[in-house]
């Protein structure tokens, strides 16, 4: 027997298994064609229509002859190969989609929309700085620098809004929210322009704002706080929800895909073993080498792909939980911290609302890092006292649940090493920021507003420098998670390399080996 006929056989052999012998239609058709082909010896080398071959096959099986049996077993094994290939393609497709969505499409875009909240919030903070320092242009980061930052943030807000609009896709509610944010931003800028003009005309000393400026700024900052910021925040949450849902569905799909691979793989191996035993037994051989090799290849394929799918589910989990979730949570913590820091400026510039801004500062601080007041009144005084107590000698591994809020979640999540040390740095810097707040408020309520303003707005010392240290530590902490995210996505991409072709190649090899193993035996019956 030469190899030539085998290559002829392959295409029809691959289609044959698609028609199981039990199919009523198939059987009926086979019966109908009995007359035409009765007596003709089955000759696979003769060019023949696919249907005719199917019928020949079925007839042989139906008759229960040895070649019929061999063909049937071989067909079952080939169906198994096809099924495994199908299951693998779907499962690997899911793994690929998962990495694509979390790592390259929606994931990074959601992180980008997070900067919308930050940019808007910082715009308002810069306005507060400009208005607070008045004609003393060298206070704080300086009048011109504050204005420059305002412009930068405005551009960033616009870019983030575009990302959000793209993420919204055909979700009309989200699109509408993006539009409302942009509309609101227009109104906000108009109010800010008005406040800045009045401020310039007043030409006041730092912290001595005329009521007219305060009133106009109140309208602007209320619009920001009540309408723009909540919508921007909700946009990121909502698009983050989409990512979570697609992550959950992809992860479960990969896991159930793995189960399916194991089940179909086991069935294929069983079919190959039955075929092996039958062929070897009938022809008094110990082993059929081609079939044995097919079994080994099938086993390796199932084992490798099961391992691959487990690893991919792991990479995806890492990217989502160690990376994405933390990055998003920390970007919210950062935005809220900046906005709290701006509440200090607002507290100083608008004494009429000092109580309100003190309360929002407390609320924001508690959102970032919540300490149990232990029965004491929930106010800044308690917070100042409790924070050092809780943070003194804090060890994330030991003191789980010592505090709540964004940093509490982060403390539970941070892994030893880079993340934990970055977290500890951040917490130390945060404590310094809160200490400055305490000093600043003590000065302001002790009728030394100028000292308070100098502390808050002093350029290379004081509150701004400490806050910048805190901000840098927070960015480093976020970068540690960014690295974990990038690594997991890289592993996910790398792990899938070649898996376009491997299942197909292996399936072709297994099917080929089955035919190589079976054909010479069948030929003995001609």
């Amino acid at each position, binding site marked *: 027997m030469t190899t030539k006929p085998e290559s002829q056989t392959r295409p029809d052999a691959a289609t044959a298994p698609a028609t199981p012998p039990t199919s009523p239609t198939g059987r009926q058709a086979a019966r109908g064609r009995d007359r035409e082909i009765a007596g003709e010896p089955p000759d696979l080398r003769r060019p023949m229509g696919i249907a005719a071959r199917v*019928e020949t096959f079925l007839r042989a099986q139906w008759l229960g002859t040895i070649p019929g049996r061999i063909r049937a077993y071989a067909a079952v094994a080939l169906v198994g190969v096809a099924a495994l290939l199908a299951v693998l393609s779907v499962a690997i497709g899911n793994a690929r989609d998962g990495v694509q969505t979390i790592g390259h499409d929606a994931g990074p875009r959601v992180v980008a929309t997070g900067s919308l909240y930050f940019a808007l919030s910082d715009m308002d903070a810069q306005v507060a700085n400009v208005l607070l320092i008045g004609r003393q242009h060298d206070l704080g980061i300086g009048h011109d620098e504050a204005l420059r930052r305002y412009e930068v943030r405005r551009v960033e807000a616009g870019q983030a809004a575009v990302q959000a609009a793209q993420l919204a896709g055909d979700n009309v509610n989200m699109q509408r929210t993006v539009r409302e944010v942009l509309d609101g931003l227009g109104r906000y800028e108009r109010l800010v322009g008005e406040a800045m003009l009045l401020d310039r005309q007043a030409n006041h000393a730092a912290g001595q704002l005329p009521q007219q400026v305060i009133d106009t700024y109140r309208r602007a900052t209320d619009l920001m706080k009540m309408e723009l910021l909540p919508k921007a925040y909700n946009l990121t949450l909502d698009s983050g929800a989409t990512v979570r*849902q697609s992550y959950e569905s992809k992860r479960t799909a990969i896991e159930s895909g793995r189960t399916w691979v194991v089940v179909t793989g086991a069935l294929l191996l069983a079919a190959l073993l039955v075929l092996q035993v039958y062929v070897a037994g009938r022809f008094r051989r110990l082993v059929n080498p081609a079939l044995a090799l097919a079994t080994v290849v099938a086993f390796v394929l199932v084992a490798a792909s099961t391992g691959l799918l487990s690893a991919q589910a792991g990479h995806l989990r890492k990217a989502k939980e160690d990376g994405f979730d933390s990055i998003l949570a920390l970007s919210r913590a950062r935005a809220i911290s900046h906005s709290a820091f701006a509440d200090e400026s607002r507290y100083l510039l608008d004494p009429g609302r000092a109580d309100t801004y003190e309360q929002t500062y407390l609320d924001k601080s508690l959102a970032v890092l919540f300490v149990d007041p232990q029965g004491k009144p929930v106010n800044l005084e308690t917070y100042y006292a409790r924070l050092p107590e809780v943070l003194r000698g804090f060890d994330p591994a030991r003191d789980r649940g010592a505090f709540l809020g964004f940093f509490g979640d982060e403390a539970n999540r941070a892994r030893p090493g880079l993340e934990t040390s970055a977290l500890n740095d951040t917490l130390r810097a945060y404590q310094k920021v809160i200490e400055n707040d305490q000093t600043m408020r003590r000065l302001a309520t002790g009728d030394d507003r100028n000292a308070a303003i100098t502390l808050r707005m002093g350029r290379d010392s004081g509150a701004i420098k400490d806050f910048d240290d805190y901000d840098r530590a927070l960015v480093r902490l976020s970068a540690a998670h960014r690295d974990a995210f990038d690594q997991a996505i890289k592993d996910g991409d790398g792990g899938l390399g070649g898996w376009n072709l491997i299942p197909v190649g292996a399936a072709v090899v297994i099917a080929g080996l089955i035919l190589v193993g079976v054909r010479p035996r069948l030929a003995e019956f001609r």
Partner: protein
Amino acid sequence: MRTSRVAAAAILVAATGLAGCGLSGEADQGSIVHKRSLVIGVKEDQPSLGLKRSDGTYEGFDVDVAKYVAGKLGVPPSRITFRTTPSSAREAALATGAVDMIFATYSITAQRKTKVTFGGPYYVPHQDTLVRADDSSIKNVRDLKGKRLCEVLGSNSWKRVTEERKITATTVKARNYGECLTKLLAGQLDAISTDDLILAGFAVGRPLKIINSPFTDEKYGIGLKKGDLAACEAVNRAVIQMYQEGKAKEFLDKWFSKSGLRITTSVPQFEGCT
């Protein structure tokens, strides 16, 4: 020939289909988003928010919001069972599954978030102060200095004035807000300070006024079983729609417009689903 070829193709497709089915994966199992009917916990003694009528049904802003949100989850009012859920029993009721959701002036706090997943907030009320309509001496919380403030048993609201802000008001004890109200009208105390929505419910139809000088942000959240993120995301989307469609304004106007309270008709900043 043709028939068998078609049959073969059909079976191939069916086999592939079979292999594909079950591979897509079903996430978020056990979430209440898939439920056909819902049990919702509300208050029974808060006028305009959650109040039990004599016929056993409930009314109020919380009830209307609950109906709207449930509707967006595909559950019509006919398949909602409202149940009175007192403040002390809320966490347990969610954990055991006695109720599916809670809309009951349920403030989101960091500590509660460790036991409950919060959707929303669907509204951010502020602590404000209720005084007699003819009293012009109290314009903001600082003016409570030296005044008589109602101290309700088991409530924290008065502490926010006297302890958190250290405003030296004289507190007058009362068993509940009903008693505060009677005493305020009788001139036995000068002010009641708590969530403005609660005050608004009391103010309607009485010679009282809210001073509209808010000094805190509360967050009325939608209580959900801890970990049901799918439900949290779904109710958040419903709340966004409630504001976009103007329904939130409609509900707020219906229950609070007569009280003279300044209401917010823009969607609040959500807490995030954890």
